[in-house]
């Protein structure tokens, strides 16, 4: 992967891992700005479990990206309910700083939550 691409795998529900991730995203953000990278592609398809604090990390990152005029493109697996729904919500934040691309066919067997 090049310098403007990032891939997540595993789970993000451990507070120490989340603290490390926050630090790494801060460093990455500074690098993106310094390098003049316009778009960073973030592949989260391998991220099978997160808690709401991890989703908060993505929200905060989108805020930083909006302030620095670069875009984060999330590649998501639509067969994973949390990815399909939470990234769909992130896409609705009304900022151009986030784009979500669903990779692969969506499953027709999973139930949607009611609203």
């Amino acid at each position, binding site marked *: 992967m090049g310098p403007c691409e990032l891939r997540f795998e595993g789970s993000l529900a451990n507070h120490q891992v989340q603290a490390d991730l926050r630090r790494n995203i801060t460093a990455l953000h500074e690098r993106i700005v310094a390098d003049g990278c316009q778009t960073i592609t973030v592949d989260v398809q391998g991220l099978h479990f997160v808690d709401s604090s991890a989703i908060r990390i993505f929200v905060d990152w989108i805020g930083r990206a909006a302030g620095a005029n670069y875009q984060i493109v999330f590649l998501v697996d639509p067969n994973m309910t*949390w990815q399909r729904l939470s990234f769909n919500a992130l896409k609705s934040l009304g900022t151009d700083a986030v784009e979500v691309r669903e990779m692969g066919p969506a499953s027709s067997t*999973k139930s949607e939550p009611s*609203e």
Partner: protein
Amino acid sequence: MNEAPSHSAAIHRSWRLAGDWKALDEVRRYLEFGRRFCHTACREAAMMASWELAENVIKYGLVDGDKVTGTMTIALWPGRTLIRTENKANWAEGAHEVISTITRLSTATSVRELYVQRMQQLLTGEGKSYTRLGLLRVAYEGGFQLSYRHEAPRLEISAERRCDSPA
């Protein structure tokens, strides 16, 4: 008002929650064990919901002795899952926010809208010291109906969903 899991629940089990998260490994194994009652999407939702509800207890519960403690019960019926937590909570720092969120969820025309709204608040810096996405996520992503019972300082939260469609 919440009802106790009835004895007609196909299976149910309780755990003591503490700050070490060990109970959640057992919850995961229990949901795997109960897979005949709970298809894949339902198990994913139950795991997420049990995690978020446990976080709620540990983050906002009253310290009892030297740490926060509470209990979690999961009851599985064919096509129905119930997750319940019980703990002591301080009104100003925990219970009030939880009850307010559940009340808003129960009257909302769109749970998704509440979830996006909270994300938007975090993005603009409003109420940034707490994430407060957990219960919204349980309702939106997990499709659970939330309810509560509060007899200060005891706070009980129930999350229930139907699991009709098999994986």
